[in-house]
């Protein structure tokens, strides 16, 4: 009978992650502040920004663009006054 061996695991260690629920959804869009966070090269996001503002004029839109894969973060103050975030990844 062939000898048996123990073989070791080549994978890395996943650190534990504390998971959080999704933020409560909006019950109405009227007067809400929604942040549109754009990363990467301008393309689809140009039209999304225009059409979102046109189709949902009741929303107070804020926009930040990073032009890299890493988004521009909201400041603590901005987080307090922002009701929802749309992150548009173009990579």
């Amino acid at each position: 009978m062939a000898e048996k061996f123990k073989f070791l695991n080549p994978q890395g260690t996943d650190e534990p992650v504390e998971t959080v629920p999704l933020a409560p959804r909006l019950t109405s869009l009227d007067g809400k502040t929604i942040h549109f966070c754009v990363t990467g090269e301008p393309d689809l996001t140009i039209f999304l920004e225009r059409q979102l503002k046109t189709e949902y004029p009741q929303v107070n839109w804020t926009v930040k663009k990073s032009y890299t894969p890493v988004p521009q973060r909201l400041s603590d103050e901005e987080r307090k006054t922002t009701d929802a975030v749309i992150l548009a990844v173009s990579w």
Partner: protein
Amino acid sequence: MVVDYEDQHLMMKSNSLKFGVPGLRFIAASRTLPGPEDAARLLHPIMDCLTRPLTEEEKKSGLWTAPYNRVIFEGTMEEAEAFFQQTKYIGNPVNAPLNIYTDGLPVVLPTEERVKKMLTGTSHKPDEVITLHEDGRQGKKGQDVMFLPKLRSATVEQVAINAVMAGCKPADLPVVLAIAESGVGVGTTVFFSQWACVSGPIAKEIGMNSGIGMMGPGSQANSAIGRAYQLMAINIGGAMPGVNRMNFGSPFNTAGTCFAERTDALPPGWKGLNEEHGFKKDESVVLVGLATGGIYGAQFSPGGYRSLQRSGHGGVARRMGVKGTPGPHNWLEYIVPDIWAGREGGFIFVMAPEMAKHLHDIGFKSKDEVYKWLYEHSFIPLGKYRLRSWPDEAPTQGWLGVERTSGKHWKDLSDDYMVPLVSNPTQNCIIIAGGDEEVCLQIAGGRYMPDPHELDRFGAIAYSIDAWR
């Protein structure tokens, strides 16, 4: 909510979990529909993601864990071969089975005994977590190294297991550990070509090939260390094409690449990679990089090069306007500025000793002088710079940032203003390696520059090997 592409959903799921929001809602943009049409299609689904009531699953919080089982398999060698060669079918955008634990080729099976023997190659304890020995791209000295794309950590033993699988010997382990300190990058959506170059005494100690064919087959140390680099990305980082990496894969080599520098062939006054990066001549380091922009090489035939330098004959001499005049000539004039025709940024120039000697003989008394020359010959008019792809993003911050040589906003500069295609002279890097054959290979993706405006966020960094002995 997030807008991504359909083929990136698995990557988004993996990332959202790692950042603690496993229920993150995302919808897919099209890669091909015209922008206005796609935007109109996405508007209402986007707003639905923001307004549709949460499900019970989406309201949950908790602690996600994925226990690490040190022994992954028990059985005979034959059974273990099948285990380590198992595949998983990856649907769109791969549509093929991919190996889970290997690069697709058979591996040396990591028995407990083999790993124990491998660990004799370092004084570090098996359970020591890989941390940074210096401040760098990943953070501060002493910080745990995170391996992309799954943001995992690793111990010395986990690195040793991969070294066994790759075919390394215990003496190779400090080099593999130093490469591990880099975090074993694979890019964002790309499984880049992974390359590493060893500088210092360890190269000879472990029998590395720094001469002809140093990037090819035949050298145990070169091949196994290069393969360990890639296996660590697969196993420790968890990188898998189509799941969390997109694009073609590595066009350089299917198993990673490691070679050594010819420190014995440096022209007088030219520093080796170890000294260039702040280490001593007798210290061993490894420069760890990714070919982010591809590989360029064989611009001229070796015979054509000899004709240029020995007698001033041939096409190279004609282009350079030195027909009939024996060298030495500055052969870099043949490849600059065309080298930046397709992409900006630094290059790693891997050149044969004779070619470095010619540069030295015509007056470049140090590598820094060559770097300065390359930088000064990289300037093009802004009007032409605007017609390139990558400058639209990080380098110019969407043309809203400040141009670094003038300190002025990009929009305030005229089309004839000259801008460099390399952001800093030392973003380029010269490595002397190879044999007598006159060849220079250029790896696009130069040295790491700590600047958010940099195109190459994964530029090469040197790590101490001695710290891992």
